[in-house]
C-alpha cells in the first residue's frame, strides 16, 4: 500500500514513501524528525499535534498523509528557532507562558493561524481560537497574554 506522497514541510518539498493512511503526525515525528508536534490523544481532541496546513490549524494526529498531498505544512519548528524565534515564540518566552511545555507547540500553531486571519484580536477572540487546545498545567492566562503581546509587536509600525 506504500506510495509516494509529495508535500511541502516548513518550506521544503518532501517526498514521503509511506502508506497514505499514515497519520501526518507520525510522518512528521518519525520520518522527518520534526518532534515539535506532539501526540496527546489521537482523536483531534487536545490540539497538541496542531500544524498549519495551507494556513489552517489542523490536528495532524487524525490527518492522513494523503490529505496533505500537495499542501504547505508548517510545524512549530517552521515558525522559528531558539536563536531566531517567531514573534509569538518570543512573546511566549517573555511571558513565561508555559509550565511543562508539551502543549505549547500546538497552541503556537493555533495562535499563528489566528493572527494570520485576525492580526489584532481581542482577548475573547484569542481564548475562542485556542479552545481546541488543552493545557493541563494551567498556563492559560500567560498564554493568552503572550498571544496578545505578539499581536501587538507584529503590528506594522
Amino acid at each position, binding site marked *: 500500500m506504500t506510495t509516494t506522497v509529495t508535500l511541502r514541510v516548513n518550506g521544503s518539498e518532501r517526498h514521503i514513501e509511506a502508506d497514505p493512511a499514515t497519520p501526518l503526525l507520525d510522518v512528521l515525528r518519525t520520518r522527518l524528525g520534526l518532534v515539535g508536534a506532539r501526540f496527546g490523544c489521537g482523536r483531534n481532541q487536545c490540539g*497538541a499535534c496542531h500544524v498549519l496546513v495551507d494556513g489552517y490549524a489542523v490536528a495532524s494526529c487524525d490527518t492522513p498523509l494523503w490529505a496533505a498531498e500537495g499542501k504547505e505544512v508548517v510545524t512549530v519548528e517552521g515558525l522559528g528557532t531558539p536563536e531566531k524565534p517567531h514573534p509569538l515564540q518570543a512573546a511566549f518566552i517573555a511571558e513565561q507562558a508555559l509550565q511543562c511545555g508539551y502543549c505549547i507547540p500546538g497552541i503556537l500553531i493555533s495562535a499563528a493561524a489566528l493572527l494570520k486571519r485576525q492580526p489584532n484580536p481581542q482577548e475573547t477572540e484569542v481564548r475562542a481560537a485556542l479552545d481546541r487546545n488543552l493545557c493541563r498545567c494551567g498556563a492559560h492566562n500567560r498564554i493568552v497574554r503572550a498571544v496578545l503581546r505578539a499581536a501587538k509587536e507584529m503590528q506594522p509600525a
Partner: protein
Amino acid sequence: MSGSTSATAAPERRLPGNLQTNPRLSKWLRFRPDGFVEISPGKVEIGQGILTTLTQIAADELDVGLERVRVLTAKTTYSPNEGVTSGSLSVQDSGMALRYACAEARAIFLAAAAERLGIGVGALEVADGTIEGPGNARTSYWELAEEELLDRDATGTVPPKAPARRKLAGRSIARIDAPAKICGMPAFVQDLALPDMLHGRVLKPPRPEARLTALDEAAARACPGVVAVVRDGSFAGVVAQTLESARAGLEQLRRGATWDGGAPLPDEANLRSWLKVQPVETTEVSAKGDLASGGAARTVRREYSRPFLSHASMAPSCAIAQWTDGGLRVWTHTQGIFNLRADLAIVLSMPAEKIIVEHHEGAGCYGQNGADDVALDAVLLAKSAGGRPVRLEWSREDELCTGPVGAAMAIDISADLDAGGEVIGWRHDVWSNGHVSRPGRAKIPTLAAASQLARPFERFISVNPPLAGGGGAERNSVPGYNFPAWRITSHRLLTMPIRTSSLRTLGGFANVFAIESFVDELASLRGEDPLDYRLRHLPDKRARAVLETAADCAGWRSWQKREGFGHGLAFARYKGFGAYCAVVSEVEGEADIRVRRLVIAVDVGEAINPDGVANQIEGGAIQATSWTLKEAVRFDRSSITSIDFASYPILRFSEVPTVEVTVMPRADEPPLGAGEAALGPTGAAIANAVFDALGTRVRDLPITRERIIGSMA
C-alpha cells in the same frame, strides 16, 4: 588540605535537606575544567520549573553566572537517591541540600585557592567562578577542578549566604528550558529516537483484574512490520518496526483476545454510599480535648464527596526499554528513578544494580500517572526485541483507563455548637482508598502489569503515607482553627476496584473543600462574615496575613451583591505545615457556573523564583477549577468509560478565570513548596461562592448543573 573525609567522621547533627541521606558532595556538584559546574539533583523536572530553581540556588551560592551551571538529568548510575519528586518538597529537600553543598564546595575551593596562592581565605573573592585576591593573585574553580576536592562528605557547617546577600535566589529568573520547549525542540521522553528503536503496544484488560484466557498470536504476528508478539499470563503486546505497524498488530491482537472475570466496579451514582460500606482499616488521625462534654445546643452534620479524578496529563505515558548483555536500561518520566528500579528488580528477579534507569521529561505531571506502569510494560516487551530498544507510548485510552487515578472520597463532618453557634466539638471522618501505590516502597511491586503475569504478584492495595509526612486520605483533615475539641478519623478501603495512587494534594483537596465549606456554613449560621469568622479562629499570624491579603486584593469587604453573582473565600495551610494559601473566588451563573476571577495570596516562605511560584499557584488554581466544576472519572459496572477528552472534559481557555496571585515576601523563612498549596482553597472558595450566588450548597463534587439542581431539591 586533607583528602576525602572518612566514613567514620559522620556529622553530628542532621544535614540540611537530602544531604542527610546523600552526604557526598561530589554526588551533587562537580566543577569542570572547561568552565562549567555540573549539578546532579535526584529530583526531576515535571513541568514545575525545578531545574531552573536549583540552577539559581547553585549559581548564587557558588558566585557563578547561571549559564555556567549545567544540570544533569537524573540517572541511577550517578544521581543522589532523593526518592520521589512529589509532595511539594523539591525546594526543601533538594534545593536546601544543594544550597548547603554549594556553600561548602565554595569554602573548600577557597581554602584550596588560598593554599595555592599563599593568601588568607579572608582576602579572596569569587566572581563568576574566578577566585581573586590582592595584587594579581587569581585562580578559579575550573583550574582547581581536577583536584577532586569534593570527594568527601558534607559537614553542613558552612552557612549559606544570608538572604540579603543573595543575588539570584529570590529573583524571577526565566525558565532555562523555555526557549527549546517553545520552539518545539526535542525535550521529552516521547521525542527520544534511539538507534534501531522498535515500537510497542500493549493489550489492556477490558476491566480491572480480568484474565486473558485465549489469544490468537498468529494473526498479529502475520501483520506487516510486527517483529514479536509478547505474552506473559494476562500481559500481552506487540513489538513492531513502526508506530503504525504496532497499532495494526495490536488491533489484530485485540480481536483475537478472550478475557474472563474481573472485579465489578461500584455504582457510579452511589459512590459516596459505596465508599462508606466497604471493608476498611480505621485510624485515629488526631484527637483533642473532650468531645463528650454536654452543653451542645445543637449538632450540625454534613456529608461531602469527591469522585475519582484523572491526571489527564497532556501526554500519555511513555518509556523506552532495552535489554543488553549486562542488564537492562530504561528511559522514563517516572518521578522516582530509584523507586521504579527497585520494583523492576523485584518483578524481574534481578539485582537492581543491573538496571539503569534514566529520567527524561514527560508532559506535566501531577502525581503518579502511568509513568511507572508503562516502564514495566516496555521492559516486558523489550524482552522479545533481541536487544533492540523498544519505545512504548500508551494510547490516551490506556492512560485514562489503566493508569492510576486520584481516589474518590467521602467525608462527614459534624460540629457541636453552643447556644451562640460557636464550635465546642468537631468530628471529621474520611472514607477513601489509599492515596499511594508508588513503587519501591513495599515488599511487593505496585506496577500494573506485575499482577497480570503468568506468575503474578499480589495486586497492591493503595495505602496512606504517615501523617508526619502529610498523610494520604487524611491530608489536611485536621482543621487549622482553634476549636476546643475534635476527633479526626480516617477509614482506608481494603478493596480497590479502581486503581488509585497519588494525585496532586492527595486527600488535601477534598478535606479542605469539606472543612472550608463547612466553616462557611457555620459562619453563615451565626450571621457572621466568613472572613471575620476565620480570622477569629486562626491563631497563626501568617495564616491571617494571607487571608487578609487575598481579601484586600479582591475587595472582599466592598463586594456589591448582585443577582447571579457570588463570591467566596477559603484558606488552608498545605499538609498543616506547608505553604499558606487563601483564595477569593468570584462566580457567575444560575445552573452553569462560570468562575470569573480567583484572587490568591500565598506564603511559601522563601520564594527562590517568585514568578515560578506564581506560575505554580495559577496552574494549581486553574486545575482545581477544572476538578471542581467538571471532572469525574466515569464508569459503568464493568469498566471505566472516560476514555478520551470528550468523555473526560477538562477546563478550556474560554472557561478559565483570571487569576491574580500575591506571593508574600518571606525571604527569611524556610521555603515550603508551592506546587499543591492552591488546589484545596480554590475548590472550597468556588463552592462558597456558588452558595453566595445561589443560596444552595453543593457538597458532592463536581459542581455541575445536575448537582446544583439536585441540591436545590
